[in-house]
């Protein structure tokens, strides 16, 4: 199976690899997937407390090229968005942007879950209710 150019680009030049200080109140962390499934993503956002804008996003991923590319792309999209805007990122947007084949759709699902988990972590830390995931993937 051939990878799309965009997947290869994100794999070879991943954007925003790294770790944010998860103890900080304005940092939300989402760790999703499981080692035995072959995919683990950790996605973090750092929110500007005055504006509510995501000023930084970092990821680390254990998984195939499509999983790495999905999370790399997610961090790119998150930066500069408000937390509420970030909630609108849909896994199918990732599928389309990276031209993922059907067998790799779960990578995009995982990335969307990572975004939502990170946002909820941020919300809970800041005394807000977690957003219910209305879109159950599994």
């Amino acid at each position, binding site marked *: 199976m051939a990878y799309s150019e965009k997947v290869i680009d994100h794999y070879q030049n991943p954007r925003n690899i790294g770790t944010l200080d998860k103890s900080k109140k304005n940092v939300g962390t989402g760790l999703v997937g499981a*080692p035995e499934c072959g995919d683990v993503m950790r996605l973090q956002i750092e929110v500007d407390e005055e504006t509510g804008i995501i000023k930084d996003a970092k990821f*680390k991923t254990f998984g*195939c090229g499509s999983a790495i590319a999905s999370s790399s792309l997610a961090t790119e999209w998150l930066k500069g968005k408000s937390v509420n805007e970030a909630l609108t990122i849909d896994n199918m947007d990732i599928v389309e942007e990276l031209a993922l084949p059907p067998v790799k759709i779960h990578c995009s699902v995982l990335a969307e879950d990572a975004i939502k988990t990170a946002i909820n972590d941020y919300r809970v830390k800041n005394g807000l209710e977690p957003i219910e995931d209305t879109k159950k993937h599994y």
Partner: protein
Amino acid sequence: MLDFPIYLDNNATTPVDPRVLEAMIPYFTKFFGNAASRNHAFGWKGEEAVDYAREQVAALIGADPKEIIFTSGATESNNLAIKGVFEMYAQKGNHIITVETEHKAVLDTCKHLEKLGAEVTYLKTDIQGLITPEQVEAAIRPTTVLISIMYANNEIGVIQPVKEIAALAKKHGVLFHTDATQAVGKIPVDVIADGIDLLSLTAHKMYGPKGVGALYVRRKNPRVKVTSQMDGGGHERGMRSGTLNVTGIVGLGKACEICKTDMEADTARISKMRDRLEKELLTMEEAYVNGSVEHRLPHITNISFKYVEGEGLMMGIKNLAVSSGSACTSASLEPSYVLKALGLDDELAHSSLRFGLSRFTTEEEIDYAIEHVRDAVLKLREMSPLWEMFKEGIDLKSIVWAEH
């Protein structure tokens, strides 16, 4: 000068040796006769070529030429051996003993027979991938008709104690079949010394063409019979109908002949390169060999690079053709059942790469592989959350992972 991509997946298939191809070529256009045409020179030439190839195959495994049945490959040989014995010896019983780490051609054949009333015992290996003769003996019942245990495994190269198992089978009057697809041509295999009753082999794992193989069926002590699985002209002593693939058979014969003469020298050179590759890659932290290193084929190593996912890793070494036990490489999203059967964590199975060397592998290719695999592993660990947790001393087993 290196030619890319570098092929290190020789347990999947091997290139055809130029000497094999050369032997085959005249049989495509010049000597194209049907080996079963008894009444003209074209047929005689074909038959003569098949007879010669039968001798070459027999010589490699210590058999009599009459005991070689040509097939389309090891999958057919395994089907013919297992189904053929099950049907032929139905009056004696319906029990078959095999192992969890067998190739699908054996496992799925057994599963098929279970639907037809067979009882099958699937033995569990130890963490090294080995079974013991005692395990086999304990599983034998009065109704056991066949023990089918592979000579060497295709994913980890582990060699089973075939001789000891065959002796037990004989003691209990049970037939012994071995899928020797990976072993024949790589290590000495002798059906007499090993006590094998049926043996499957294929050409394309030993520098021959795809689509041709053989089943060895013992003729003496005991005389073994298998029920044919295809109806037709009664070729191959009635056990396998179908016009003989003369060209392919000539290739298989030549491949066997070369393996016999070159085996010692090839093995010495290939295993030295394999050992170097393995040793260098194991200098990395958290890298482990899967399966026994003591009882193993000379040209294979299967290594797990913990905290890195196999398919992601293969993408980072795109100039190297290897295979992985990772789920992502299969449509099923399940990691290698062989590695799982050893009792390996799924996580380690996902992180595995199989390297298979050949007689055409060069030292320069191994240098390249060592350097690039190492670079890719280090790069991917830098972006692996699991590696970061491991480095922070977090026990990954203590984390409640969200299933997906």
